[in-house]
């Protein structure tokens, strides 16, 4: 190399048009192959989603009927429905969200408005992010230890608390993200008018971040609506009609779990109907949340 340089030729590889063309073809081919593989992986991902949705629609709709919504769980072969599970899920998910949301909003507000850059704030943010991805079955075990064992039995309330714990980090994340997007000039303007800080946060910051915060709440509802593992050890499930939160309470995911694992055809069919219900509502909530957020951006 150095020899050829001293000989006065141009530095760099020898220019041979045929070699260059072959190299170019090889690079282009590698590029085309990778592109094709990437399109392929995306198609595979979409195919999984399609397969899940088609299976659910096909098996769910064949099992769907008025009984699903009007009757409680009955022994196999006697035309039961999922009414108790649907109502139980609605009660637990809405109460869990109602308890978890204010806490989550306050934590998110603390992180965005009070604790920017502070050590305690960083720690809270870290722990909240860990809780967001931590296995939900452990939340169930924890609530079993603190609420089921000491109070002598499985109860709807224990399920509500477990779901609330799962709601908190979801709401924290979106609340903080949305509040940090608000320009500081807006805060300065409000404080400049002589408003106390809490009024600034509640009436200006929360208000202008409202659609984002609601997105977070919708996502949290979608998340807890499908949670099974934390409810197994807390509200347990109930084959009868129960709206008393101090007793074991049915929920759709737990009902699906026990029915899908049973050997009875009609129970498995009911499980598919329940699965279709849950998935449709969860996906609808997700799409609604995204539309809200897109409108904002």
């Amino acid at each position, binding site marked *: 190399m150095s020899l050829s340089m001293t000989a006065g030729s141009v530095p760099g590889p020898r220019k041979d048009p045929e070699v260059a063309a072959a190299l170019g073809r090889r*690079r282009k081919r*590698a*590029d085309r192959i*990778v*592109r094709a593989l*990437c*399109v392929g*992986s*995306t198609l*595979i*991902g*979409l195919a*999984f989603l399609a*397969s*899940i949705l088609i*299976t659910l629609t096909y*098996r769910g709709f064949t099992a769907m009927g008025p009984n699903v919504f009007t009757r409680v769980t009955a022994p196999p072969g006697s035309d039961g429905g999922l009414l108790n599970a649907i109502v139980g899920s609605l009660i637990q998910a809405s109460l869990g969200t109602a308890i978890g949301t204010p*806490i*989550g909003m*306050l*934590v998110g507000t*603390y*992180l965005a408005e009070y604790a920017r850059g502070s050590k*305690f704030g960083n*720690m*809270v943010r*870290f*722990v*909240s*992010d*860990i*809780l967001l*991805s*931590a*296995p939900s*079955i*452990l*939340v169930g*075990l*924890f609530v079993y*230890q603190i609420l089921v064992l000491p109070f002598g039995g499985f109860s709807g309330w224990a399920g509500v608390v477990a779901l609330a*714990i799962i709601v908190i*980090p979801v709401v*924290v994340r979106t609340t903080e993200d949305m509040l940090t997007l608000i320009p*500081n000039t807006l805060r300065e303007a409000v*404080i400049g008018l002589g408003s*106390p*800080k809490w*009024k600034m946060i509640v009436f200006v910051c929360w208000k202008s971040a409202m659609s984002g915060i609601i997105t977070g709440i919708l996502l949290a509802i*979608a998340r807890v609506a499908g*949670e*099974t*593992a934390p409810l197994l050890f807390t509200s347990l499930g109930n084959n009868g009609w129960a709206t008393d939160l101090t007793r074991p309470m049915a929920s759709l995911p737990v009902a*699906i*779990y026990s029915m*899908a694992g049973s050997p009875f055809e009609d129970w498995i069919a009911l499980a598919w109907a329940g699965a279709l219900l849950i*998935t449709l509502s*969860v*996906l609808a909530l*997700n799409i609604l949340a995204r539309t809200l957020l897109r409108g904002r951006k």
Partner: protein
Amino acid sequence: MSQAATASSATISHSARRGGNLGDLIFEWACRGSGLLVLVLLGAIIIELFIAGLPAFRAFGIDFIWSTDWDPVQEVFGAGVSIYGTIVTAVLAIFLAVPLAFGVAFYLTELAPTWLRGPVGTAIELLAAVPSIIYGMWGFFVIAPAFAAHIQPWIIDNAGELPLIGFLFQGAPFGTGIFTASFILAIMILPFIAATMRDVFQQVPPVYKESAYGLGATTWEVMRGVVLPYTRISVVGGIMLGLGRALGETMAVTFVIGNANRISTSLFGPGNTIASLVALEFGESETGSLKLASLLALGFILFVLSFIVLATSRYLLRSRLKA
């Protein structure tokens, strides 16, 4: 009034007015208290699980972690098989999911036409929204039979006789088992890894990519030579996030892993994971029994495992979080 008007934003956030503004005081402490509550919550989960698992740790000592016994009749319990299953399924899921996730992220950031990026990105993210139990049913009633009838016999015929790695693919094609569980897990964590990769790929300054394109680089060369080196730490962070998710998945795995307490050399053999074992056996354990304590001790081990992985992931992703 004039003082307040000239105050900069920095002093606003730090000086709570001490002039007896009770509302401010209450609100700030409500926020701070909620933050504290989150810290206490995580601490309480760790401590409660540890205390509840203590009888098992006492009875079996440190051997509990690698002992492969699980005998409810003689009250001998060990975590070896389920820890093995948890780690093997999660790691295998990562190997299956990462190439796919990379392909999806590459497609969404560089290849797809702009009008298609939104819908396709949303569809992939919806995979993350589908509840775990739905994956379980789908895996059990659709994927496992398909594996048993077509895919596993083919792999066993073609790879079962290979030297060195052949033993991984031997045995009967049940459909359920370690491999099927990893496969379902891979689909479940795909959207998390793909979304992280897409976000960090988008953060590469366009001028870097344009310089490479200007030199005549192909799209793939730009990805390999510019985008990946620039984002590799965050990419690993995204993969760790997926791993953390895979470790603790419960319902989907419970449906398809076959639930047997033994370590099989074949990937098609049945097994269990910490989460699936807890979900299955918890209902059959009496309050105060050694079995229940062992299950809670397993929960504690799972918590430690996922905490380490998730904390690493967050550490690696910190540059992205700041941006």
